[in-house]
């Protein structure tokens, strides 16, 4: 009887001490920590142990005294991620917590495309901005990003977009006037700028005039412009074609100061046409009544 009682008492003491040990060595972890912020972990129990904080983004190892508060200074843990915490002493305790990106964005990764495009193109320019904190962590909390396209005549186009999973994007129209535009993405006090070159579009209207000069015809286009009135760049090829008595002559001329000029033989009854790219100009019938 006495031995049974001793056994029961011993068992109770063992269970109680095991529970006490479990309670004493339990880790008190923060649920989340902001990247780069100071934080502490409370351990219980006594004796020495080794604390590991491990994730793919960062690893820390500390020799600790159980029962003391383990403090981590600002900057010790600066990479956002999910961290496993392991405390190895007389027993092993595990836990986990998350490190989130700092709330203040300090960097942008801004991709603007294309760098060159025709004027007056609807949704022709795209901008994508990824928002990062000072430790190059993607800021996953929704953040307002302001996109602005300016620098050419007219009112600047502005869009404010909230990030989703750290990224914001927009599409904007190219301006109706040619020239360099500034495309800016801004979040808080951080801005990133790209230059977008807006060039004239396809010629809109092509018209030539003719003048006789002895046995030759002097052909000259009117200034070639796109549909928004921008001069088509010099060097654009204009093709003059003359069809006469079953024969054909073709001359390719680059635009110079906005116009194309050439001379062709003056055949009676010839038909002369002009074209550039996919745009046909007027036709002239020479010498017909």
């Amino acid at each position, binding site marked *: 009887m006495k031995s049974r009682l001793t056994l029961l008492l011993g068992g109770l003491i063992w269970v109680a001490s095991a529970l006490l040990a479990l309670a004493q060595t339990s880790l008190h972890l923060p649920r989340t920590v902001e990247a780069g912020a100071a934080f502490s972990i409370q351990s219980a129990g006594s004796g020495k142990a*080794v604390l590991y904080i491990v994730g793919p983004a960062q690893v820390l*190892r500390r020799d600790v005294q159980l029962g003391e508060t383990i403090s981590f200074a600002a900057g010790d843990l600066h990479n*956002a991620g999910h961290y*496993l915490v392991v405390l190895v002493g007389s027993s092993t305790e595990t836990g986990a917590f998350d490190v989130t990106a700092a709330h203040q964005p300090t960097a942008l990764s801004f991709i603007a495309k294309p760098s060159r495009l025709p004027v007056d193109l609807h949704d022709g320019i*795209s901008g994508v901005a990824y928002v990062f904190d000072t430790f190059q*962590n993607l800021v996953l909390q929704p953040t307002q990003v302001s996109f602005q396209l300016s620098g050419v005549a007219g009112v600047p186009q502005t869009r404010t977009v909230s990030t989703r999973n750290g990224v914001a*994007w927009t599409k904007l129209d190219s301006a109706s006037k040619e020239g360099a535009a500034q495309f800016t993405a801004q979040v808080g006090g951080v801005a990133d700028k790209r230059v977008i070159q807006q060039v004239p579009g396809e010629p809109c209207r092509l018209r030539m005039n003719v003048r006789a000069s002895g046995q030759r015809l002097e052909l000259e286009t009117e200034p070639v412009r796109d549909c928004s009135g921008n001069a088509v760049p010099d060097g654009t090829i204009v093709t003059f074609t003359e069809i006469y008595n079953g024969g054909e002559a073709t001359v390719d001329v680059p635009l110079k100061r906005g116009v194309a000029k050439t001379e062709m033989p003056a055949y009676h009854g010839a038909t002369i046409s002009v074209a550039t790219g996919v745009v046909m100009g007027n036709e002239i019938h020479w010498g017909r009544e």
Partner: protein
Amino acid sequence: MMKMTGHRRVLWKPLLFVCSVLATLLVWGSDHPTVRVEPTGSVGPRTLEKQTETAVVRDYLQAWRSLSGALGQNRAELLNRDFVGTAKEKLADTIREQTKLGIETRYQDSKHDVQLVFYSPEGLSIQLVDTVEYDMQILDHEKLQATQHVRARYVAVLTPTEVQWKVRVFQAEPE
């Protein structure tokens, strides 16, 4: 009361050893995690072709294998194949730190639930969210300190290179 004979004791130890090996193999031996790709609805301004989606998921899963090898063996060069930019730099820093501390970490991914969430209009970046489950082992000077099953939500941004997609941003966030 039944007593274990010497003969049984001899059999018991190898059986225990075989069971432990089998259990370890079950956890660490499987090379192919279960992968579920969520149906892709709208991923933003650009249409995502099935072929692109397949390539992105394939390359992302391959990146996990590279990560596992690199962190398990403390070999940063194993990251080159599948990581670029910030992700590669941060993982390489972890490997440097592990080497300094004499630590190795083994990651064995067992389950991925992947959803592609953003494909940029110019096609230069694609973002996915992955609820991943993995087993993690921590070894300090080759001594196993802990094995833990982890479930976490990762956000990854991949960018195209000459022949494949590489992970540029790799970051876990609270679920």
